C-alpha cells in the first residue's frame, strides 16, 4: 500500500454519490440520515483502499471482513456497495419495500453484509471470534469493526476490548465513528466518553485519532496497520453527524429523518453547495 494517497479526488467523488444515495433513502419511511452521513467517508475509504473485498470474493474465506456494528448507518454501506459494484444501484429504490431486504438495519440477505446488526455492542465480539479463528489458522485477513460513539455506552464494547487485548488480536481494528452524538443529544452531555483515546490505551489497545472525513488522514492511519504487534488497533475517527449537509450537520434532532420528496430534492441541491434547505418535516428522534 502506498503511504501517500493519490486518488483523493476519486474517493471524494464516490463519497458524494454515496451521500446522494443516503439522501434518496431518507424518504417514504425515512432512515438514519445523520449517522449514515458521518460514516460515509470511512466506509468509502475502507472498501476502496483498505479491505480486500470485491464482488468476486465475497465467499472467499481469505477476504477481509468489515462488521458494521452500529448498523443504523447501513445506508452509507449500501450506497458504497452500489458505487463499487457490489450491489445493483436500482435496488436502493427498494428501501423498505417488501420486494427486497433493504431496511433500517443490515442483514446478510444482501451479499457483502457479514452479519446482521442493529442491537448495539454485538459485533465487536463477533469480530473477535472471526479474528481469533484467523489467528488460529494463521491467515492474514484484516478484520474491521465500525462502532458508533453512542454505542460505546454498551458494556459489551468494553468487554470486547478487554478480550481482544487478552488474545493479542492485532489483526482486528475497531473504528469508532466519533460523530459526537447519540440518538437524542451530544454524547458529552449525557454519558461523557472523553478522554476516549486514554480509555482505549488504558485497556491495552494501540490507538490513532484522526479526522474521519480526510482521506489523507484515513490513509495515513490505516497504512500503519498493524499499529503495534500484539495489540488491538483502534481508530477514533472524529466525524460530523450529518456531514455534507449544513441543514442536518450537528443537530441533535436530525437523527432519524423521513423527508418529503421536495425536501429530498432540496437536500440533493444542498449537497452540491447550492443553498441550505428549509426542513419542515416532523423530525423523528427516538431510539
Amino acid at each position, binding site marked *: 500500500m502506498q503511504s501517500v494517497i493519490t486518488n483523493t479526488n476519486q474517493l471524494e467523488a464516490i463519497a458524494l454519490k454515496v451521500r446522494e444515495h443516503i439522501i434518496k433513502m431518507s424518504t417514504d419511511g*425515512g432512515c438514519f440520515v445523520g449517522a449514515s452521513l458521518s460514516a460515509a467517508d470511512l466506509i468509502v475509504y475502507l472498501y476502496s483502499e483498505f479491505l480486500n473485498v470485491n464482488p468476486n470474493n465475497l465467499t472467499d474465506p481469505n477476504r477481509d471482513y468489515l462488521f458494521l456494528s452500529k448498523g443504523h448507518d447501513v445506508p452509507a454501506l449500501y450506497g458504497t456497495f452500489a458505487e463499487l459494484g457490489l450491489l445493483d444501484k436500482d435496488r436502493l429504490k427498494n428501501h*423498505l419495500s*417488501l420486494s427486497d431486504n433493504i431496511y*433500517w438495519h443490515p442483514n446478510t440477505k444482501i451479499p457483502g453484509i457479514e452479519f*446482521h446488526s442493529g*442491537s448495539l455492542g454485538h459485533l465487536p465480539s463477533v469480530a473477535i471470534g472471526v479474528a481469533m479463528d484467523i489467528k488460529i489458522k494463521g491467515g492474514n485477513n484484516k478484520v474491521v469493526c465500525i462502532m458508533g460513539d453512542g454505542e460505546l*455506552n454498551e458494556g459489551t464494547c468494553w468487554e470486547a476490548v478487554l478480550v481482544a487485548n487478552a488474545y493479542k488480536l492485532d489483526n482486528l481494528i475497531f473504528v469508532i465513528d466519533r460523530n459526537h452524538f*447519540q440518538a437524542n443529544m451530544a454524547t458529552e452531555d449525557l454519558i461523557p466518553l472523553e478522554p476516549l483515546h486514554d480509555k482505549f490505551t488504558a485497556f491495552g489497545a494501540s490507538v490513532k485519532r484522526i479526522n474521519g472525513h480526510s482521506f489523507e488522514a484515513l490513509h495515513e492511519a490505516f497504512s500503519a496497520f498493524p499499529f503495534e504487534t500484539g495489540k488491538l488497533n483502534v481508530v477514533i475517527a472524529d466525524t460530523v453527524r450529518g456531514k455534507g449537509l449544513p441543514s442536518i450537520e450537528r443537530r441533535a434532532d436530525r437523527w432519524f429523518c423521513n423527508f418529503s420528496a421536495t425536501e429530498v430534492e432540496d437536500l440533493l441541491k444542498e449537497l452540491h453547495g447550492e443553498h441550505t434547505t428549509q426542513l419542515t418535516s416532523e423530525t423523528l428522534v*427516538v*431510539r
Partner: protein
Amino acid sequence: MSYEELLTEIALSDERFIVMTAENRALVRNIPAKLGNRFIDTGITEQTMIGAAAGLALRGRTPVVHALASFLTMRAFEFVRTDAGIPNLPVKLSSFIPGFLSDGNGPTHQAVEDISLMRGIPNMTVFAPADEDDLVKMLPQIWNHPNPSYVRINTRKTDYQHSPFELGKAEIIAEGEDVTILTYGLLFEQALIAVDILKNEGLSVGLINMRSLKPVDEHAILHATRNSKLTVTLEDHFLTGGLYSIVAEVLLKHGLTANVLPFALNEKWFKPSLLPNVMEHEGFTGKQIAEKILGYNTRFHQPQIAVPQFSE
C-alpha cells in the same frame, strides 16, 4: 390523556416515582424538565439501567423504566429476572415498539417473544393494552401494585372506549357462539374489523381484549372456549409462549380441550417494512383474519392502517 401526561401527573404527585430511560426518550420527551433529578437517563445501557432501578426500588422508589422492547426484555433479561424478579421489587418496565410496531427495523428490534420471556419470571406481571385509552386506564393500578411489571406500550389511538381496568381481568367486548377472538395489543384494532366482517357473514362472534396476560383471566378463557365452536388467538408474537400457549396451559390445567385457531408468528421473524405493509404481508389485517376464519374471500374493503407516529 397521553402516556406522557399520565406519567408526569403520577410522578409529580408521588415522590416515590423515578422515571428512567436507556436513551429512549420518545415517550418521555418533556419529563426531564418537569421531574428534575427524578428523571434518569443512563444512556444506551439497558442492563445497568435495570440494576440501578433495582437499587432505587431497594430504597423505596418505584422506577418506571423505558427502552425498546427487544433490548429491555432480552438484552437486560437476566438483570430483570435477577435484580427485579428474585427480590420482587416494583420495577416497572415500559417497552417501546413491541411486536409489529418495530415495523422497518428488522429482526434485531422485533420483540415477538417478550410476553413469553416476561411471564416466565416469578413475581413479574405482564400487560398488553389495546390502544392508548386502554393503556392509560391500566397504568395507575399497575404502577401502584407492589410487583415488578412489564407493559407492552401501545399508544395507538382507536375510537373504542374501554371499560375500567381490573388487574387480572380481561375485557369482554362481545360474546358469540360461533367464534370468539382472544387478542391483545395493537391487533385489537384489526380484531374489531374482523368481528364486523364475520357478523356480516351471519356468524355469532365474541371478542375479548385480554389486557392482563399475567395474572391471566382464566375464567374468560374457559368461558370463551366452552361457549364458542371456535376460539381464535390473535397476537403479534411467536406462537411459542404467548397467548396461544397461555390458552393451552389454562385448558390443560382444567382438563379440557378446545378447537383453537392461532394467528401468530410460527418459528420466524416478520418481514421488515412499514407497518401497514407488514400487517398485510404477514396476514394480520382484519379482512385477512376474518377470511381465514371463514375459509373464503369477502367483498369487504380493508380500512387503511395508520403508519406509527414514531419509527425507531
